[in-house]
């Protein structure tokens, strides 16, 4: 039984000044199934809403059309009013008489005619609306944070502090990320590890955080609130509970010539190692690739020396299956290594290093305990050249974007150098100085003005060696592109920040999209910079694009709030305007024929497969099924589906068709 009530709003005079509301109400009242049609000065006012609620009861309305302003404005208001009047809120539609009619047309018959048409199409539509219930899905209140850098740490702590469980996954043996490698941080020049390590320890000790290092995501299934995650805990070849972290094994390991990743290859480590002294957890792992025992079948010195007998050579990788409600991706970034720049002679000349290597040189915990010594001969460089934008903003190299952090850390590097080598000369080749941010530009100015770093605006064309010195050739564009040649002892390349290795693989496991540079893609560049297009998966830090520490931390906290917000509910309630694949009686099961082309158009991976089996358990048909937890209701699959087996609540085929017909025909 369709009994539609129509309420025409004057919106003061906003509508009634150009539209003959009385005529609209009268004309619409004559339509089939319209049980009640009226007009009122302000429908959104209390008396206006009461009018609707009473009419629903009095006229036993099965649908309501409020012809007023834009539904983008008051749809929630009127749907709520209908619900209060006892009508399912999804049986209410709005006709936009203000923004789309009265405000944009002159007062005349045509405008009133248009108003009638606008209302009529909503009447025809609302007849076909379904009473929908909000979709409720349970929420598993455990978050997973992937990546244990500063962003991951921040996010994990923030979530954990709201009282929710957090699983943190880090693929290297210790958390800390790139920040733990840094010497000092801009613009305050406080010691990076000093501010970071307490937070690392906090993670390790937090009762709500479970930390899995040396672990990677194996697979992710499910949807917001209900992910099923498999993680692979790589074998550390060690019983972590028994190990006390005394470090004896690491000193006795005969294999000591492995380039140390933490030191960016500027130092060596053994095969059983703790990545750095403040590592969390402070337990060694055996690098099976380089361990003599795993290569040659004998050695086992570590096992012999271990006082607690914690070494486990036969330990397998472990697969853990976890129920997760939300995921924060904080896998960070990497930098383009200097071998990307043959024109700068990297590899050929030992004294050309990248920014992270410089960080290690400048770090008190680094291979030189903080002394700036050039790698080739351990001498203090007297002239040092920093090349900014090494790779960034260079479409020819395939990286058109600005890596954002290099300007600042290059200024910092030059400053650190000048602080340590007072008599030295520091040159910076740059394209532009991008120093937006609190106290950032002041910082750069200090480098130039107080520490007398020579900033040269121009690109370096080549670096070559002459008489044991590095000759840096470039131009100074501020001096009319005059050629510049600097004789340097050391060159530091501020290489481009790039997506971390494995980002693409992870994105595919998470079903999150990523951009051309393999950085994870946000759901909306402006309004949803933390969300991904997969509900329940959020981004933090430089996995999205190169970011500095404060930006990473802010975003990490933002992601934590998103997770906490999600976890504040026991059930997730969503607008039920989702797509649905029809179901029919066997043997057809659905008119869907299972071509799964819809799967490739769905931006949300919301389309799953459903198998139907016969009595013998044999699969007789496989058809598409929409995961309503993931579907956002865009309807692209609906328009694509050739057999019209998918429909969209709120914008069903029947409804949109009826709207077109209603618009153009005589009633």
């Amino acid at each position, binding site marked *: 039984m369709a009994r539609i009530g129509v309420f025409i709003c004057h919106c003061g005079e906003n509508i009634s000044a150009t539209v003959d509301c009385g005529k609209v109400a009268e004309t619409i009242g004559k339509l089939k199934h319209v049980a009640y049609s009226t007009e009122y000065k302000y429908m959104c006012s209390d008396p206006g809403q009461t009018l609707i609620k009473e009419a629903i009861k009095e006229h036993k309305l099965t649908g309501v059309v409020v012809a007023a302003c834009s539904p983008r404005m008051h749809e929630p208001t009127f749907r709520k009013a209908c619900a209060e009047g006892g009508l399912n809120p999804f049986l209410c539609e709005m006709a936009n008489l203000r923004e789309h009619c009265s405000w944009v047309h002159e007062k005349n018959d045509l405008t009133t005619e248009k108003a009638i048409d606008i209302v009529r199409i909503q009447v025809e539509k609302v007849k076909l609306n379904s009473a929908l219930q909000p979709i409720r899905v349970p929420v598993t209140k455990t978050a997973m944070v992937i990546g244990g850098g500063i962003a991951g740490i921040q996010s994990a702590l923030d979530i954990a502090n709201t009282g929710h469980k957090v699983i943190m996954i880090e693929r290297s043996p210790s958390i800390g990320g790139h920040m733990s490698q840094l010497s000092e941080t801009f613009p305050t020049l406080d010691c990076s590890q000093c501010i970071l390590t307490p937070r690392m320890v906090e993670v390790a000790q937090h009762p709500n955080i479970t930390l899995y290092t040396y672990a990677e995501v194996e697979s992710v299934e499910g949807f917001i609130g209900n992910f099923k995650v498999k993680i692979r805990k790589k074998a550390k070849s060690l019983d972590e509970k028994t190990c006390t972290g005394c470090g004896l094994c690491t000193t006795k390991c005969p294999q000591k010539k492995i380039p140390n990743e933490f030191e960016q290859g500027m130092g060596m480590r053994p095969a059983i190692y703790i990545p750095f002294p403040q590592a969390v957890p402070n337990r060694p792992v055996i690098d099976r690739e380089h361990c003599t025992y795993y290569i040659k079948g004998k050695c086992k010195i570590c096992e012999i020396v271990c006082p607690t007998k914690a070494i486990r050579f036969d330990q397998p990788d472990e697969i853990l299956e976890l129920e997760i409600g939300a995921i924060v991706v904080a896998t960070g970034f990497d930098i383009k290594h200097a071998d990307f720049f043959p024109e700068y002679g990297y590899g050929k000349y030992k004294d050309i290093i990248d920014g992270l290597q410089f960080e290690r040189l400048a770090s008190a915990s680094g291979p030189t305990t903080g002394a700036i010594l050039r790698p080739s001969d351990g001498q203090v460089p007297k002239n040092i050249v920093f090349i900014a934008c090494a790779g960034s903003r260079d479409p020819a190299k395939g990286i058109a974007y600005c890596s954002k952090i290099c300007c600042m850390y290059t200024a910092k590097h030059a400053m650190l150098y000048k602080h340590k080598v007072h008599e030295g000369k520091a040159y910076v080749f740059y394209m532009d100085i991008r120093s937006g941010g609190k106290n950032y530009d002041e910082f750069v100015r200090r480098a130039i003005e107080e520490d007398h770093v020579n900033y040269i605006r121009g690109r370096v064309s080549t670096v070559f060696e002459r008489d044991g010195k590095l000759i840096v050739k470039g131009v100074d564009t501020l001096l009319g592109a005059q050629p510049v040649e600097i004789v340097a002892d050391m060159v530091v390349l501020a290489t481009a920040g790039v997506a971390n290795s494995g980002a693409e693989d992870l994105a595919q496991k998470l079903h999150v999209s990523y951009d051309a540079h393999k950085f994870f893609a946000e759901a909306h560049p402006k309004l949803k910079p933390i969300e991904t297009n997969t509900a329940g998966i959020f981004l933090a830090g430089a996995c999205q694009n190169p970011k500095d520490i404060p930006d990473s931390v802010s975003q990490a906290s933002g992601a934590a709030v998103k997770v906490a917000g999600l976890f504040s509910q026991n059930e997730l309630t969503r607008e039920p305007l989702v797509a649905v694949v029809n179901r029919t009686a066997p043997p*057809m099961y659905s008119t869907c*024929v299972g*071509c*799964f*082309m819809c799967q490739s158009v769905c931006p949300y991976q919301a389309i799953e497969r459903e198998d139907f089996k016969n009595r013998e358990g044999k699969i007789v048909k496989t058809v598409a099924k929409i995961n309503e937890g993931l579907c956002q209701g865009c309807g692209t699959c609906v328009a694509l589906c*050739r057999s*019209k087996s998918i429909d969209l609540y709120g914008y069903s085929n*029947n409804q949109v*068709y009826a709207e077109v017909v209603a618009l153009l025909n005589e009633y």
Partner: protein
Amino acid sequence: MNSLITRAKELLENKSVQVVIGYEAGPTSVARPAFITDPAKAGTLIYDERCVQNLAVYLTKPEVKHLGKMAIVATLPVMRSIMMLISEQQIFADSIVVLGISADGSLLDIADVKVMQGYIEKSDLGNPEKYKELLAELNKLSPEERFAFWQKELSKCIKCYACRQACPMCYCTRCTVEVNQPQWIPVQSNTHGNMEWHILRAMHLAGRCISCGECGRACPVGIPCHLLTMHLVDQVHNYFNVYAGTSEKMSSVLSTFEPNDKESFII
């Protein structure tokens, strides 16, 4: 076509397949699809220029599937149809044996999908020459003349849906025309409704048509409806530089996109 017969017989005898889908001669001058289940009857298989039907249409037919594993005599369009059907998850690559037939009518050795893909990629994938001329002629007409041409042709349509049934890509168990909520396409046959049907069909085949021309050939009243889908084959190639049915993993043009897809009409 002795090699084909030998091969078919062998496949049936060693039970590699339960049915060979091929062609046989009928009582009249036309050849027809044949379903050989008995190795002794493999000798009735023929292949010559009369063998025109796109046999891939049977790969999704329940009664044929019911017979068991299938071998299929496959010319280029059939092979491309098979690729499409695999990519659209209607058949499994390992469930059929392809008895490939080359352009000159000889039996190809198509060991697996990879080999088939190799063969397809080497072939000319554009619309067949005999249709190119017609397409070009139509394209030369003014829009009004084209409108008149199609009205005249489509007024003949009796909605028997032979075009749909003959097409291996029209495998839906329920076609849009069979939907009545809403009634997208009028049930009756009239020029306007017929035009809507043929537009719908062509759009549904955009990026999926493999230029076999069966729809047009099957039409009992001689509507050149294959020109609609073939025109889109050309356009898909113009815009997106792809031809359908070239790989088992191909996504259809309309279910994928490139951010830099070029067009000139959206303001």
